[in-house]
């Protein structure tokens, strides 16, 4: 279903018009609240906020290149225990994908949420974002948007996050409504695509007019994805060779201090408590001595490489590539690169793509009577 709509521009400011559109959505009786990145009074930050009064949408800033948390986690908080009302959420494509994964894991519900997805222009790491807004005081989001759409570098000092640089899925496929930015004539209006029946209903209700599909969009996206894929493959190659022995992998992860920030930030890591913090890994004191006696030396804290490999086993098939793990790491371990490199292979192994569809069960939940015969046996 790809029905295109158009909302006429009210003025020159894109952000204002987008806010206007969001207001019209929130004004609908059926929508109780709207989750959208908003400028917060504290510390110049943009964080997701759940807004229930349309007039308070003036601080909403979905174009901001800030990405402090993956909002799928927020949706989980809002819907996991059952939400008896409808809300709308403005999400990045990777957030939508994470949301889909969490729905499969019964950590989120899809029914109460209308998803509005923006073409993703990318984001900075938390630290770089602070640098960027200082550089572009006042109109940081608009400047960023303009530069990204023109294919120019938004900043001279900081780069957008590595995850975004290699993101080949910048289009919110899983949204009910897509707000197109790439390959559309923004001066002619806001181009919206209804991807579900529900999205169409809302667009009809707010009075958006039907429109032709933007002509250049496909071409522009094709090129964009091609560039991103090339970038991605380069990262895969570099990362793969950086970890292609256990020794190199341990060097790669050498900075790990078992803070578990990566797993807290990860939208797919849904465990209430990580197994590595449970009694399973609460070793007996004597045990440490026995271990060190075996090899003569024991790195402390233990279980770091073990932890990361286990996390790859648990979560790489659900990795949506949002980059929050790297963003969260206090010691700048390039975890996103590692996860995406591995996830790309593990997802391909099961012909699975994290976040693609709610109907695809997680790979380890299912099996076929006959499959993977090549891994059975000791033949080479």
């Amino acid at each position: 279903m790809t029905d295109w709509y158009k909302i006429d521009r009210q003025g020159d400011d894109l952000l204002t018009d987008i806010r206007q559109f969001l207001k019209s959505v929130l004004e609908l009786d059926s929508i109780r609240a709207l989750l959208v990145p908003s400028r917060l009074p504290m510390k110049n930050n943009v964080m997701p906020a759940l807004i229930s009064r349309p007039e308070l949408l003036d601080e909403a800033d979905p174009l901001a290149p800030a990405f402090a948390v993956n909002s799928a986690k927020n949706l989980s908080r809002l819907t996991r225990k059952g939400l008896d009302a409808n809300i709308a959420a403005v999400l990045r494509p990777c957030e939508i994908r994470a949301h889909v994964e969490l729905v499969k894991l019964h950590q989120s519900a899809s029914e109460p949420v209308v998803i509005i997805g923006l073409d993703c222009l990318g984001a900075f790491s938390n630290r770089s974002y602070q640098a960027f807004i200082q550089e572009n005081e006042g109109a940081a989001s608009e400047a960023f948007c303009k530069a990204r759409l023109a294919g120019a570098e938004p900043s001279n000092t900081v780069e957008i996050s590595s995850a975004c640089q290699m993101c080949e899925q910048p289009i919110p496929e899983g949204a009910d409504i897509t707000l197109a930015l790439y390959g559309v004539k923004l001066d002619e209006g806001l181009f919206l695509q209804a991807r579900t029946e529900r999205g169409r209903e809302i667009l009809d209700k707010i009075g958006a007019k039907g429109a032709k599909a933007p002509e250049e969009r496909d071409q522009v996206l094709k090129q964009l994805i091609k560039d991103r894929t090339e970038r991605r493959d380069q990262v895969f190659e570099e990362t793969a060779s950086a970890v292609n022995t256990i020794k190199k992998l341990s060097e790669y992860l050498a900075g790990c201090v078992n803070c578990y920030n990566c797993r807290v930030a990860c939208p797919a890591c849904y465990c209430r408590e990580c197994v590595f913090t449970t009694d399973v890994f609460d070793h007996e004191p004597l045990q440490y001595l026995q271990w060190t006696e075996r090899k003569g030396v024991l790195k402390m804290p233990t279980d770091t490489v073990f932890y990361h490999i286990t996390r790859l086993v648990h979560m790489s098939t659900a990795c949506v590539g949002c980059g929050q793990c790297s963003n969260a790491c206090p010691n700048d371990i390039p975890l996103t690169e590692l996860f995406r490199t591995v996830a790309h292979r593990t997802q391909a192994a099961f012909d699975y793509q994290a976040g693609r569809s709610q109907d695809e069960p997680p790979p380890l939940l299912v099996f076929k009577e006959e499959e993977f015969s090549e891994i059975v046996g000791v033949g080479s």
Partner: protein
Amino acid sequence: MEEEFEPTIIAFVCNWCTYTAADLAGTSRLIYPPNVRLIRVMCTGMVDPKYIIKALLDGADAVLVSGCHPGDCHYINGNLKARRRMRLLKEILSGFGIEPERLRLTWIGASDGIEFANTIKEMVAQVKKIGPNSCKYQMVI
């Protein structure tokens, strides 16, 4: 004297089929190398990837997971679930330079004592060829 490398293989064997086969190999006096350490589990479907990762990071030269043939599983399909999990593990670990010879999955039925002995022989020979697991000497875990 250069001591020949004797690999250590940890085998997770299912209680119903492969353990029975291993027992048969023993009682039939089939000779197979003593390099294997059997860990009996009720089903290959309960072999947690953590066990395999730990064994390899702790220095096991190879890990074998062996259970009933498809269709034979005492628990209906634990072996099929194990196969998927092994597929995933192999994909991940191969990226970190763990050779395919170090992580094996086989189906060995209760009467296949000979096959069990042959599997161990074959694995030992293969692992001898590729040499010790580097984790044996370095601290990783």
